[in-house]
């Protein structure tokens, strides 16, 4: 890396990636290193976000939950002994926060509309783009109509396939690139939804 740095010594996690990076940051964070915490937040916020969204929270509530989860982690860092358990802890805590009955209301509006409306309109687009946008909209609608458990599993499956989320794969004991039986059933269900929506169009 040739980027300009201040005179500070490189942090101990410099050059590490994936699980090793997270373990080194957790270690340093436990000793009160704020830079290490910042690094973890930067790396793993998308994971927490997608678990919150998979569990039926709208974007505004998901933002709060992401913050709550990180505050909860760093206010009780001592309790999480095994840095390898970090992903599992984040996933479980986010899920629990998302389904917390206390003071939280699940939105009656289906998620599909919120995001479908944000999709580019098909009107001015060239034809193949319009076809693609139309297909995307239908695939997305099928996805958000899946049970939360499936949405979460599929989002996590996708993240786990990316190098930077190796720890998710480890937490889920998921060999890279494989689609297990439960995920297969979720995908079948998604295909059924797509077919039924396609037919009623």
């Amino acid at each position, binding site marked *: 890396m040739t980027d300009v740095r201040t005179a500070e010594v490189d942090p101990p996690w410099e050059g590490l990636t994936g699980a090793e990076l997270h373990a080194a940051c957790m270690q340093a964070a436990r000793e009160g290193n*704020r830079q290490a915490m910042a690094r973890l*937040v930067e790396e793993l916020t998308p994971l927490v*976000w997608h678990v919150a969204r998979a569990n039926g929270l709208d974007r505004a509530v998901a933002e709060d939950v992401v*913050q709550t989860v990180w505050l909860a982690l760093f*206010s009780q860092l001592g309790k999480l002994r095994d840095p390898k358990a970090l992903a599992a802890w984040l996933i479980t805590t986010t899920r629990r926060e998302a389904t917390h009955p206390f003071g939280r209301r699940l939105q009656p509006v289906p998620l599909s509309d919120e995001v479908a409306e944000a999709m580019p309109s098909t009107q001015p687009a060239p034809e193949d783009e319009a076809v693609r946008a139309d*297909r995307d909209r239908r*695939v*997305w609608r099928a996805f958000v109509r899946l049970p939360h458990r499936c949405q979460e599993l599929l989002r996590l499956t*996708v993240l786990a396939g990316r190098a930077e989320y190796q720890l998710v794969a480890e937490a889920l004991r998921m060999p890279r690139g494989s689609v297990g039986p439960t995920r297969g059933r979720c995908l079948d269900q998604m295909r059924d939804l797509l077919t039924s929506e396609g037919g009623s169009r």
Partner: protein
Amino acid sequence: MNDVGASGGLASPDDGILLADIGRFLDELDPPPDDLVQRVQFALALEDLDVEVARWERMDNLAGVRGGGTGTITFTVSDLTVMINLTKIGKLHRIDGWLVPAGQYGVEVRVAEHGTSSTTADEGGRFVLDNVPRGTTQILVHLGDVSCRRTVVTPTVVL
């Protein structure tokens, strides 16, 4: 069965295609908001992280409060409820708050890039903070006495 095949072969897309679609959606349609990481970092930039995290209550009227400038919001943590009423005065806010159960507790309001305003609630649990700048805001309540101090913090919210 039907003719969806004509618009992109949807009859039976295989697992790989669907997963690739979902992957694209996660990044393009439903990514975390751009400033979320920054807001988390701000929420965590506390001197002492030995805190309890409160939850904002989602009332129907909250939708109008975010970024809108005026209204009442509530947050709760185990045994404490804090109600905040916001009044917009020019570019600033006046915050009227009420703690239940009541107590003369310290209250701090942190606004990103604007520092902290603090006050102490009266014995009825009421407090007022004038001239609070608008922006990414976090509220802290210091409960208890010297022997047993507790700090309750909220996630940040854009006010």
